[in-house]
């Protein structure tokens, strides 16, 4: 009798809500019944309100159940879950769930489906084909394919990935490096974590292609220490890829050499800034470097270096396998391809939603996200992490792309959307933005190091109602200008986004007259 295959996520978000106990209960329950089962530990499909979401492979399809607690396992087994039988927790085919069926999953095509530690399973689901094609191409042609795809850096800055690669390819250097920025510190974002835990080979394949394209033989994955599960999976996946010959001295028996090493962060948010990250790998304080020189000219250990975000590198295998045009066919305006959007915070249907650019903020928050988890009206959403702007409901028609958000004094950053209900105090949120900048400032430039502390103090005075409110607000505005234009990197430079957007869109929380129709529930 062949074993029935069960799929239980080992994604940190699923573990956080009890997936490990569910796996144990399934194992024990099946054993008691004498039912042979194979429990595959996958990543998450990204429907976190349904986690732990487990799946069983029937003869024809996979059937999902969720959210399953350990206590639900016995009743589920009694009901015949192993053959996909009905039960109140039965969700049916996961792909048919509206949250998934509305998505365009290119980067996340395999996440939650495959065994993250099996290079064979990855290959069986379309993996390694991009690498195969890249090996048969001239390096400059690989770079051109990435340029033509229109892929822009998914870390936040949105700089064209192919242009970075071209610069590194043309830079002279005996040793070059590929660095993956997996220091995903923005609150409200978890796409890097999900892909690392759920489909690590797509990142390994993307980095290997990058290495072949620019002539780099060594890559580093810099993962934040707050992600212990992702660190463990990537390390194990690197070992498995090396063992299977996909990386190492001869990449899939080609003349190319490429190997990978994981470096772990140490709790500094600013190390998500690329030059601070390079300093950190080199063993120093994570202080931002002045640019130029660009990392592509003089990066890690003073060598030409491509440094890309996890999602940028993870998009590369699809581009090489399916062609640049297939990737560029998705998207909106100058924002090509898909964006893994993360719905987070006080949201009913939180999770990972990968789609072409161009959906409106309102569609994402209200239709796809289902409004708040608390059931109260949505008052504000912060888009793009702690350095992103707060948007009120009246700007919910903003399409999700780089330029549209920039035009409204915001940014999409790494694609995180944090939803707040009407109990939020926007003055507190503005104060937190300043406080966070003060905590995380690397200290190199004065506006960020000192301005952030002074900013928090001034907002404190506004909140306590001390002194002249208009003068305080003028001071904050002036300080934000200084931060924006006088800081070396995005930490100081973008902290004004949450602060000024809170003041502009929610002045009533700062004791000023209310903005027109802001915060009005629909």
């Amino acid at each position, binding site marked *: 009798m062949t074993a029935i295959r069960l799929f239980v996520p080992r994604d940190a978000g699923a573990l956080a809500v009890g997936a490990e106990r569910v796996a144990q209960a399934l194992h024990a329950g099946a054993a008691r019944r004498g039912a042979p089962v194979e429990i595959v530990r996958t990543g998450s499909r990204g429907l976190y309100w349904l986690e732990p979401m487990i799946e069983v492979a029937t003869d024809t399809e996979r059937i999902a159940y969720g959210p399953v607690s350990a206590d639900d396992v016995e009743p589920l087994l009694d009901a015949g879950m192993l053959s996909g039988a009905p039960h109140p927790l039965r969700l049916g085919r996961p792909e048919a769930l509206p949250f998934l069926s509305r998505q365009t999953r290119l980067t996340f095509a395999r996440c939650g489906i495959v065994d993250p530690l099996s290079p064979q399973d990855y290959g069986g689901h379309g993996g390694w084909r991009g690498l195969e094609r890249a090996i048969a191409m001239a390096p400059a042609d690989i770079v051109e394919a990435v340029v033509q795809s229109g892929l822009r850096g998914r870390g936040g800055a949105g700089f064209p990935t192919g242009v970075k690669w071209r610069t590194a390819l043309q830079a002279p250097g005996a040793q070059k490096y590929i660095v993956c920025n997996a220091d995903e510190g*923005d609150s409200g974002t978890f796409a890097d974590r999900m892909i690392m835990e759920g489909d690590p080979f797509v990142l390994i394949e993307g980095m290997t292609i990058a290495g072949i394209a620019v002539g780099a033989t060594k890559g580093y994955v810099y993962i934040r220490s707050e992600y212990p*599960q992702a660190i463990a999976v990537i390390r194990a996946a690197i070992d498995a890829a090396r063992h299977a010959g996909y990386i190492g001295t001869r990449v899939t028996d080609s003349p190319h050499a490429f190997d990978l090493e994981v470096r772990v962060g140490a709790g500094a948010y600013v190390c998500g800034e690329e030059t601070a990250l390079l300093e950190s*790998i080199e063993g120093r304080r994570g202080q931002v470097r002045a640019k130029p020189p660009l990392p592509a000219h003089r990066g890690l250990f003073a060598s030409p270096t491509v440094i890309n975000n996890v999602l940028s590198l993870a998009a590369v295998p699809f581009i090489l396998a399916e062609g640049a045009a297939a990737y560029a066919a998705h998207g909106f305006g100058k924002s090509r391809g898909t964006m893994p959007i993360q719905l987070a915070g006080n949201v009913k249907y939180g999770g990972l939603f990968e789609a072409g650019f161009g959906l409106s903020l309102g569609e994402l928050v209200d239709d796809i996200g289902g409004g708040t988890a608390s059931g109260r009206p949505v008052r504000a959403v912060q888009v793009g992490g702690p350095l992103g702007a707060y948007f009120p409901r009246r700007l919910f028609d903003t399409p999700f792309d780089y330029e549209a958000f920039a035009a409204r004094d915001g940014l999409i950053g790494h694609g995180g959307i944090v939803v707040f209900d009407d109990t939020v105090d926007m003055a507190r949120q503005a104060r937190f933005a300043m406080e966070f900048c003060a905590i995380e400032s690397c200290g190199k430039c004065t506006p960020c190091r000192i301005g952030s502390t002074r900013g928090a103090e001034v907002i404190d005075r506004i909140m306590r109602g001390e002194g002249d409110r208009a003068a305080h607000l003028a001071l904050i505005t002036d300080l934000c200008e200084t931060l924006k234009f006088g800081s070396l990197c995005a930490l100081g430079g973008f902290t004004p986004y949450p602060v000024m957007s809170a003041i502009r869109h929610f002045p009533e929380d700062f004791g000023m007259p209310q903005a027109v129709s802001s915060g009005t529930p629909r």
Partner: protein
Amino acid sequence: MSGPEPWSPERAAAIIAARTGDAGATLPILQALQETFGYIPDAAILMVADALNLTRAEVYGVVSFYHDFRRQPIGHHVLKLCRAEACQSMGAEALAAQVQAALQIGWGDTSADCAVTLEPVYCLGLCATAPALLLDDQPVGRLNGGRLAALLDELRAGS
């Protein structure tokens, strides 16, 4: 959790020697030392500086820069409570007040019974199952006051 080992210069020397040849070895060495001993004592800073041909100030500068590195021994468990925006939107600030009151300590401190060291963290990537914490590297999400209280009781009973 087995808990940290007591400080041992011999053990530290072996940990340092195993990584001295790596490029940019400072952070991996400090992380391995903290993983073993729970914190970075002064003696370790001197040893790392010697091994990597750095000044004591340079190594101290690295230790003091990164939030992860600790200068004091830790309790039996380390609880990292997320204080970032996604968790704030789900009531993390109330949980922060609750945990500090229950343990009668502030951020970075260890409870008097040595059961728990409490640290703030800014995002665990558990933003769709907020509010969240990390207990000895194990993620816990969808917290509320009751669940947090039960978790703290369990920790204190076990130590």
